């Protein structure tokens, strides 16, 4: 209901604006799954994304970005999509097996007495890391395709108030108020990238009968809103930020109640205080990027064999400090090499927690362009130190015309089945794509 109202008002607005710019991209991607000796098509996806920028008045600009997503194969889980992660004011306009139409972003920018306001459905990105998230927790994410999609496409924009106040010459304070109670979209049951690792999903055991899963979601836009503050400073060549967020974690916590041999799962969303900082600076050919975040309440699954499993309802709570240390090197022409070390440590630990106390992931990114940037090669490798699992993405793109880009790529996972990347061991795929802008 609300969604149709929104789309109606949008159309009205579109016809009454002063100065507008319309552009769009059409992307076509085909993925071939090549794992396990059995080659089959995984997806044939088309994405049409129009963008409309306009100035409503001298001081007010509006941006609307829409998206229509079509998938011929549905392996990525449209059919069973429950859309439960979305709040009432977020999500798609239509629901169908193969198609998904939504308003991705819709916001208004204005400046009032040297303060910048962006109000509406938007994405706000905190932090310096590539690939994995430490401070980048403002917007939830869609994990329909695990982490293989560009974050700009998989991040879920939220309705929020975003205010930025400049301080002095180089600093600023940003304040966020997010009343949109939308959380991560997980890959649905039976889809290709459904999570199966015990790190995230309670594992089934013989003799235990699953009675049901109850989901409890925050409902009050006032009480359950997220608040964030970020102070940015540019000092002696350093880009610094100091961040604080009082928010609901975007993954539900799976509390498990075991009565005799019957298991009930209560998926609940829990609050967390996030306090963090980031710093980056370039030194000669190197750029250093660092980020650190302290979370007061994080929740992790316990192994069923744990003595405190029943008492703690299968969940262990601890505070956590995560960080990323990244180094980019651009010493050679047209090349960038970037290495990052992610680390996450729980202060409070128990041996039966499935996740290791100290989790380390290394990532390496290699980018090179050829022939005046018409060809671009990108190789991203992620490696988890604990279980020695890896994810490897190789991507080669060619700019056929100024507005047409072609690419070919591959995404490969390996590692123990129960690990973060290893759980997708069998989903290795080859992709071919085209993007046309107009």
């Amino acid at each position: 209901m609300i969604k149709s109202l929104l789309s109606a008002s949008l159309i009205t607005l579109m016809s009454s604006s002063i100065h507008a710019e319309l552009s769009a991209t059409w992307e076509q991607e085909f993925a071939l799954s090549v794992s396990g000796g059995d080659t089959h098509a995984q997806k044939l996806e088309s994405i049409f994304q129009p963008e409309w920028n306009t100035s409503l008045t001298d001081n007010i600009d509006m941006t609307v970005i829409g998206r229509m997503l079509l998938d011929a194969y549905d392996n990525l889980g449209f059919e069973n999509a429950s859309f439960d992660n979305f709040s009432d004011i977020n999500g798609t306009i239509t629901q169908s097996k193969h198609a998904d139409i939504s308003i991705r972003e819709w916001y208004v920018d204005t400046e009032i007495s040297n303060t910048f306001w962006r109000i509406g459905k938007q994405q706000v990105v905190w932090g310096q890391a590539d690939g994995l998230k430490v401070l980048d927790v403002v917007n939830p994410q869609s994990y329909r395709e695990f982490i293989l999609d560009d974050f700009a496409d998989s991040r879920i924009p939220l309705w929020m108030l975003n205010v930025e106040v400049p301080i002095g010459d180089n600093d600023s304070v940003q304040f966020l108020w997010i009343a949109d109670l939308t959380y991560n979209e997980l890959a649905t049951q039976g889809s290709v990238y459904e999570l199966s690792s015990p790190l995230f999903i309670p594992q089934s055991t013989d003799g235990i009968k699953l009675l049901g899963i109850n989901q409890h979601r925050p409902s009050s836009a006032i009480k359950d809103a997220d608040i964030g503050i970020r102070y940015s400073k540019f000092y002696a060549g350093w880009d610094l930020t100091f961040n604080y967020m009082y928010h609901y974690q975007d993954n539900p916590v799976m509390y498990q109640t075991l009565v005799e041999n019957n298991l009930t799962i209560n998926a609940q969303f829990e609050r967390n205080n996030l306090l963090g900082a980031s710093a980056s600076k370039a030194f000669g050919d190197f750029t250093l990027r660092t980020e650190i975040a302290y979370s007061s309440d994080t929740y992790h699954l316990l192994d069923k064999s744990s003595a405190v499993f029943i008492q703690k309802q299968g969940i262990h709570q601890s505070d956590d400090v995560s960080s990323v240390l990244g180094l980019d090197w651009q010493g050679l022409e047209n090349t960038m090499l970037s290495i990052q070390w992610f680390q996450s440590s729980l202060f409070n630990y128990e041996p039966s927690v499935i996740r290791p106390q100290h989790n380390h992931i290394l990532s390496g990114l290699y980018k090179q362009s050829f022939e005046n940037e018409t060809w671009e090669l990108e190789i991203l490798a992620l490696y988890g130190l604990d279980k020695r699992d890896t994810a490897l993405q190789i991507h080669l793109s060619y700019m056929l015309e100024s507005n047409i880009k072609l690419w070919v790529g591959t995404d490969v996972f390996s590692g123990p089945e129960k690990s973060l990347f290893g759980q997708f061991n069998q989903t290795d795929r080859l992709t071919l794509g085209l993007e046309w802008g107009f």
Partner: protein
Amino acid sequence: MKTIENPSRVQQLARLVVHYPKINVLISLVVMIALLSALPLLYKDTRADAFLAADNPALVYQNVVKEQFGLSDPIVIAIINDSEKGVFNPTSLQLIDWLTEEISALDNINAQRVTSLATENNITGSDEGMQVDPFFDEYPDTQHIADKIWRQVSDFPLYMGSLIAEDKKATVIVAELNDKGLAEITYQQVLQLVENAPIGQNDTLYIAGEGAISGYLGSYIDADAQRLNPLAGLIITIIVLFAFRRFSPALLANIIIAASVLMTLAVMALFDVPFFVITNAMPVILIGISVADSMHIFSDYFERQANNPEQDKKEIIVETLVTMWRPITLTTLTTIAGFIGLYFSAYMPPFKFFGLFTAIGVAIAWIYSLIFLPAAMSIIQPNASKRMVKLAQSDELDTFAKIMVFLGNITMNNARKVIVFFVLIILSGFYSATHLSVNENRIETFHPSEPLFKADQAINQHLNGTNNLNIIIEANESEALFTTENLTQIEALQTYALTLENVKGATSIVDYLKQIHRSLNGGDKQFYWLPKNKELIAQYFLIYSASSDPTDFEEEIDYDYRIANIRLSLNKGSYQDNKDTVEKLNSYIEDNFNSANLTATLSGRVNVNYHWIEGVGESHFLGLGISLFLVLAVSALLFGSLTAGLFAILPVLSSILLVYAAMVLLKINLGVGTSMFASVAIGLGVDFSIHTIDRLRTSFKDNFGNWDQALADLYPLTGRALFFNYLAIALGFGVLISSKVVPLTNFGTIVFISVTTSFFASMSFLPALIKLTKPKFITDDYLNTQGAPRYSFARKAARLASAFIVVGVLSVVAFGKAALASPDVLTVVDNINKVDDGDFVTRKLTMTLVDKRGKTRVRETQAYRKYYDGEKRTVLFYKKPTNVKGTAFLTFDYEPVEKEDNQWLYLPALRKVRRISASDRGDYFLGTDFTYEDIKQEGKLALQDYDYSIIRFEPLTLENGDHYDAILMKGVPKTKAIAKELGYARNEFWVDSKTWVIIKVNYWDLKDKPLKTLIVTDIRKVDDILTRHNLAATNHKTGHKTTFVFSDVDYKTQVKDKLFTQRAMKLGK
């Protein structure tokens, strides 16, 4: 016997090597020989200046001084005569005359800059006024004339102590070289001269000075190398023979040594890197390292072969490879990491290259040990010696194994005591590190018995000193140095300098003026002071030039009387001796001398040395830190555990700390030669701990988790192999101790101590620690033996590959790295740079990129630029096409050259602003044919990077008909390093003589081939400011062309500060 993990793939590769031996051997040898053909290109560089990077300010200024005054590093010949009359006898004086003439005739000697009694003039007064006559006006063939000359000279304070000793017994001939690079040849020629010189009975001739040092050092080093390298090779061959009692290992080990050393030198030659003084230590190091890998392979092979005499030898070799490839690769990677650390931390080019090329040599040794060696062994199929077979059959151990087992037993039974012992060493090492002293004296490169050393001593004893410090005085205008204020300042500075320690002499134009003044006042000593009248001083110069050669003062003052030189002579050369003096002089100059009209700057050998050595201490500890970190990182990566990495570096750390203690005790200074020992010691010493850890992991598995058994098993085989490994390296370095080059002796001593300590620490401290802590990285492999995972090879390969990439990339990284123009050029450059381009500008920029096939891409952007105090900010917003829309690029350019620019890039796909590195000025801007530097300069000239000159006036007509009265000019980057950074060897450009806008530029690449051409058209005024609207750059190499078209240019509308922020980048405007 030993568990082989994942045999399939490694075994396959090993079989490839072993079963096609002839091809492998052939290829290895062919590659080696092909590379060796480049060896003749190698050349030496023994100059002291080679130790400094070419753009080091001290060195650059030194060159300026040489240009101006013709002064640099002379060869000094001293004539010492101990008899009563000293050198003031006919024979000696004639000798001086003869030598002066002969030396001036040498090719590389600047005949205008030879100073001796025979060349200098006496200034006296007579009834007619001033008289300027050479001291040798009358040829000194009688004692009478000799006495007269003494009377004259002793009456001229300027020369007493500098040219002639106060006690009459010594005098010098100072000759400046034209080309320091040819110092060695010149030195030999001077030696010849001295041989044939007509010396008197009591005369002794000495040759000294920096020119002589550079000259001698070349042959000194050569002689040393010719002795040391074969000696090291011989010792190692003996060790190998002793260890295996067979000829083939010794032969093959030597081939690998030859490959490693010679191929590395060939690579150096190919990359135009000269052979420096310290490069001498590289072959010795490589000999020790390259033999280590083959030692381990042979050790394992012969052991197996002795125990299984019936088994097919090729199979044995395969088994050996499968077992040993891992630890050999691990140690190679860690050693390379250690040396790369030196590359990153050293600020002197010879050390950087040393670190880099030694790493390359280590890599070559690794390749040959894994390919050539097994292949050769497969052909030869050597048998284990009878001794070994007998021992194997009776299950006995040979002496060396027994020694190691004995050591093992002591360690295991006294684990705690061993740990306490090493902790004590570590603590005393830290304490000692704070007491290290940094010092360097170039003459101490030579043994005290060397003639050069003795010569230096003699001269510094009798005369003011061979160590020079120049103070260059600069005034604002021509003839400013006639004023008494300025001259008095100079005199005061001279007087102050003489109060400082070790400064024995100070000469300047002031001394000449005083002498002239005195001679024009009847020669009375009382009048030996500075005249107080500017016109008088000007007159004196005039009178002097009438009586003699006006170029006589070229070493003291320039043609315009604007720049003068005070030459200080110091009789000590070491950094510590002169540090205070240099610093005090700088203080005095800043506090009391420098003013708006007059400035002084230090230069000269002593100053260069001061700057050079200042950084040694810091660079050493930085190198230590970086090498340790790299080795830690690589070890941790390879063993998959941070703890393992820490354990791996502990023995090496304790060895370095012990060396610090030893250096403090033995009073060895941290100087140029010794400072790099840390990286070398780490690179060599870590091998022991890597082998130990690797072996313990396997041993733990083989012994089913029994700690004591696992540890005991370490000693007989691996311990034995490591022992021979240690002997090879230690004795290889021991050879350096016998070097005649003193710094190399010290270097050899401390590396020997360090390697010995590393070995013992790895064999005792490390196992003791492991025994007590029972760490996971040893037990993990055993505990995870369930279900041999099929991806474990991939896992290992990924780990190794990542280590390779880390080390490889770092190595590749390593491999990557202003004239006094005539006033005319400076004016033109000034005019070009003064062309107004507005305080701020808003403009639209359309970029059209066309490749050689004609394919066109167009990008539209909106650009803003604004000048701030000492800073220029630019922001570019991409508008079209859609797939780059929203991208933004922000730069803060700072005026001071040393301050790094800041750059940010916003990519809409990431929704995030990314900080990027701004240092690659020669990189192409976002796929166009303009470099970052091109765009930053915006048609202005960079005086700090280029030397500009005018070629001629040349009218220019472009293809589109535009015609200009242009001046054709040339720009050449000031140094090779700058050229490399910018990517241009030179450029030539036409500048419009009316508007001073550069119209057309041709660029040449680093190989001096035409690279690209830039043409500027549509130049017209907008808002009264001359604007270039169309810039077209064509790259001749790729055929690609970029056109920048500026439109909607607006200099009037205020450009808001908020545009140059990260928020604006995200907003898109």
